[in-house]
Every structure is written in structure tokens, then in C-alpha cells.
């Protein structure tokens, strides 16, 4: 059975390493914060100017001057620091953020990503996504494997305007975990109850299956 959003987030949380500074995008990536493994000390960066983001505030404790990049009210943890947007993207460009997790509309089998625009129809703007994908060392995409019409979002080539080129390292979907390799997507894990055949059927881009492919533990 395909994973739900929480499970996708939980799987991505397994990628976190002790000492990581991590930027979590809007949507599923935000949920990753809820599943940081025991004993793994990570600091969350919010590109609107915060290191040391904490959980959502308790009711009544909301502070309009304290939001994340998704404009949600948040809290800080001890040791946090605020800074302006130039420094925020400066540290991202300088490679100080170890891992970026973000959503996508499409990912191509060479690591291209599209997530900001449907021409003539939907223009949310790129926000900080183009900066993040261009500069982060390690980018994991969290998304559904197919769009609402059932079409694959893992493509040979993005059809939508690109956010970044050849930058995605790994994709975690409701069906499995995929590394981006010179041979395209490589399935290294499949969701419990999901078959390799289903993954093959729903992946439009080049796909290989790792020899040691295994069931995801979430």
C-alpha cells in the first residue's frame, strides 16, 4: 500500500545525520521535523531568516513575528539565531546547509526539478526554491509518485519550467525511494505492499532497480 504523507516524511527523516543543518520546504517536507530520530541532533533552517526552528506554538502562544518560510506560526529552540534574507541565502549558497528537502511537481531522471509554475495557469513564484536547489549540497524531493490524473511525476524530462538543473539527489514518493544516478532513477526501496511492477508502470523516466532493493521501513 502506498505511503501516506506522514510515512514519506518519516522515511526522509532517516536521512538526517547528527550535526546536520537542514532546510525543510513547504508541505510534506515540513512534516519531517516531527520524526527526527532519537539521538540525532539537527538544526532546522528556515530561509526567511532563522536557525533553530522549533515546533508549532501552543494555542495562544502564536507570535506574528515568528513564522517559517510557509508563513506558518512557529517557535524557536534554545540556541536559535535570526538573520536577514541575504545572510540566509548566503549560508545556503556557501554550502553550510547539509540537506534540503522540498516538494516538486516533476522530477526528471537526470535530477532536474520543476515546482514553481504551470504556464498560463498557476504561478506561485519560485520563492526560495531556485536558490536552494542551485546551491544545496544534498537535495531530497518528497512528493507523490503520480499527479491527481495518475500520470507519473518521475519523468524522462520535465515538461514544466525548471526550478533547477541536475540537482536532485534522491526522491522519496508514496511508492518508494529513488536515487538519481547516471542511469536515471534507481529504486532502492519500495513501500510495504507496493510491487516493483507498479513502480515500473508509474515511472515514466529511466528506471533501474537496485540489486539489493528492499522494503522500506517506516
Amino acid at each position, binding site marked *: 500500500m502506498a505511503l501516506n504523507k506522514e510515512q514519506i516524511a518519516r522515511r526522509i527523516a532517516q536521512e538526517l545525520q547528527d550535526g546536520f543543518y537542514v532546510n525543510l520546504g513547504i508541505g510534506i517536507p515540513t512534516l519531517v521535523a516531527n520524526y527526527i530520530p532519537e539521538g540525532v541532533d539537527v538544526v532546522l533552517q528556515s*530561509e526567511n531568516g*532563522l536557525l533553530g526552528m522549533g515546533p*508549532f506554538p501552543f*494555542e495562544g502562544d*502564536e507570535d506574528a513575528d515568528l513564522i517559517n518560510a510557509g*508563513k506558518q506560526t512557529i517557535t524557536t529552540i534554545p540556541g536559535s539565531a535570526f538573520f536577514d*534574507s541575504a545572510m540566509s541565502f548566503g549560508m545556503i549558497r556557501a554550502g553550510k546547509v547539509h540537506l534540503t528537502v522540498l516538494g516538486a511537481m516533476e522530477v526528471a531522471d537526470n535530477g532536474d526539478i520543476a515546482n514553481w509554475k504551470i504556464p498560463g495557469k498557476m*504561478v506561485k*513564484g519560485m520563492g526560495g526554491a531556485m*536558490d536552494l536547489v542551485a546551491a544545496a549540497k544534498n537535495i531530497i524531493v518528497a512528493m507523490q509518485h503520480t499527479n491527481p490524473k495518475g500520470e507519473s511525476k518521475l519523468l524522462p524530462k520535465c515538461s514544466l519550467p525548471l526550478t533547477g538543473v541536475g540537482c536532485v539527489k534522491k526522491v522519496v514518493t508514496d511508492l518508494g525511494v529513488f536515487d538519481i544516478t547516471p542511469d536515471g532513477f534507481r529504486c532502492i526501496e519500495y513501500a510495504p505492499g507496493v510491487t516493483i511492477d507498479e513502480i515500473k508502470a508509474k515511472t515514466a523516466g529511466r528506471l533501474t532497480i537496485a540489486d539489493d532493493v528492499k522494503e522500506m521501513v517506516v
Partner: protein
Amino acid sequence: MNKVVAGADEAVKDIPSGATLMLGGFGLCGIPENCITALVKSGINNLTCISNNAGVDDFGIGLMLQGRQVKKMIASYVGENAEFERQMLSGELEVELVPQGTLATRCMATGYGMPAVFLLAGIGTEVAEGKEVRNFNGKDYLLEHAFDSDFAIVKAWKGDTQGNLIFKGTARNFSPLMAMAGKITIAEVEHLVPIGELDPNAIHVPGIYVHRIFEGKNYEKRIEQRTVRKKIS
């Protein structure tokens, strides 16, 4: 060097139609509410606004869009502003979408007297179209230019009569960068204090960058996405 003006109306009164304005804030966080109200009241139009977002339909720069005061928006995010998206898609509003870090750094470049910088964001995307690409140490970068803005309008948490500014939390965002970039910089503050009250080590924008300052009134500080945890008792 007293830079205090009476209020928002006086602070913005010489801003002409056709001017280029930088407006601080991220979403609705840290926006110069008083000055936006005064700008809406003033009725000036044909403005070019540089701001990360354009507020929401009925708050922030969204109010200026509703009033058709804005000719061009330079922003990174349209977000949930339906009127912004509508005007953009219909072509009524000219829009330059700029990656957020590039937007911030182009503001900083202005305040730091750097005409142009090389940045990564947008390489290989439509953002790179028509821009100079240059390779440094094996990586491609885009040449991005500093902004030219007539007025910068920001909201700070505290400020003194000499224009020194301190911001609070994530309400800082683009505001210090824009404050440093305005030919004329207007700061509205939640707390205006006499000089000597701010810690000189803790000032985010030194007064040299600020031309007019006043204590704002009736801050609504609207929250765009109220997200909370339940208290477990």
C-alpha cells in the same frame, strides 16, 4: 541628527506616481502597515514595487494591487494572493519573478555599493534567459544587478530618533537589506526610543541608512497561517 517625522502620511507625502519602492516584509510578517495605509490613501499609482510577496488580497501590498496603484511587481512569490495572480496572468500587471535569495542579495548589493554580483540561482531555467552566465571554479553563475530604488519602506521593532533600527524575530527578513538600499529610506517602528537607549552592538541598520522614522500606530500584525499545537494538560 533627528530624523523623526510626524507619521506615515508625512513620511510618504513626496513619493510620486511612477516611483520605484522597496517594501520590507515576508508574507505579512514585518510589513510596513502604516506606510502602506498611507500609500493607499495617497492615491499615487504607476508604482514599481520590489517586495518578496504582495501581501494577501485584503492586506499589505494586496491593497495597493486592488487599487491598481502598482504597474510592476518585482517579487519571488505570488503565494495565495489571488488578485496578484489574476492581474499577472491577465497581463494587467507587469511581474518580474526573482529567486528569493537573488532578490535579497540584489537589495544588499545596492546598499553595499556593488553594481552586480554573480549568483547561482536560476541557472538553466527561464530566470537565466538573457542574462550573462559565467563560470567560476567549474560552476556557472548568473550576473545579477543591484536594484535602483527611489524609496525603501520598512517596519522595525525598535528605532531611535537618529534612525538606528533593530528588528524582531523573522520580521527582519528583507527589511534591513532594503533599508540600506533606498535612496530615501523610511522606517516605521513599533517603539521609537531616544538615542542612547539601543545597544550599539545590537543594531541591525545604522541610522546613516535611514532618512525618516516614526512610531507606527494600531499594528494589526495579521497572521497568514495560524498553525498551533494542542496543549496536552
